[in-house]
């Protein structure tokens, strides 16, 4: 198994979905990404995201990348 690289990037997909009144399933269908991958993203288990996927999510949720991701402060 690969070593997990620590990061402090938090994903706010759940909040944006709620704001737009969309389900994860519907978003997955619209942007042609699997529900499994979107779920990985939503639960902060993703290690990387393609720019094409980021563009598609931001288009559908009418947001900027900075709305989708924020950097948690160091505790």
């Amino acid at each position, binding site marked *: *198994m*690969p070593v997990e690289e620590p990061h402090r990037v938090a994903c706010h997909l759940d909040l944006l979905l709620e704001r737009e009144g969309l389900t994860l399933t519907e978003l997955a269908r619209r942007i042609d*990404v699997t529900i499994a*991958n*979107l779920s*990985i*993203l939503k639960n902060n*288990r*993703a*290690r*990387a*995201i*393609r720019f094409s*996927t980021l563009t598609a999510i931001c288009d559908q949720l009418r947001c900027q990348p900075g709305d989708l991701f924020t950097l948690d402060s160091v505790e």
Partner: protein
Amino acid sequence: MSPAPASVLSRRLRTVEAVLTVLLVLLVLWIGALLLGPNGLGVVGDLGGPIHTDTNAVMAVTTELDTRVTVAGAPTTTDTTDGTRDAVSGGRPVEISGPYVAQVSFLDPSPAQRVIWLLSELVGPLLASVIVILLLLVAVSARRGDPFTRANTARLRAIAALVMVGGTAVSFLSSVVSMWLVAESPAGRIVTPSVSITLLPLLVGLLVLALAEVWNRGVALREDTEGLV
């Protein structure tokens, strides 16, 4: 060039699985025929059909005859004013020379001879069955979407080892058993004992090992994209 659609790839992989499954079934039938046939437990007679082999009915080995053995009626040549010609037809000459390969059939083998022969015949298809099962597992994992796993790398390395070591051992064992059986029999008078080993399993095994290492690189690349959305 864009990759084939997933449905096409899935269909191709199912075809590969089907072919491997048929091969495995034939190997199992072959093993069963040897074990249950006249030279094994004697439960069934010569089964005939697509799995019939001569060795199923009569215990036999193929061996090289001594160089002193000649073939009666072999073509001979004669010198003519037009050059060397066939002695009978006068046409273009040919020559037949040994050593000749013959099948030695054991019409009444002892129990020990039968058991040893049977074991030497079983090792090949048993080895092939294990290899086909490993290949089938790789094919199934590919169809299910994730072929580049450490388990598949281990399977390919195991196949390489089985082919290299097992294949060479089977060839050697078969040669030794044939030599022993024939040397103990009246045919030993016209057979020069020799043991032969083919290097082909070694070469094929090395190729599979190279493939396994390339596959391992694929596993590393796959793990690199773990969690990529």
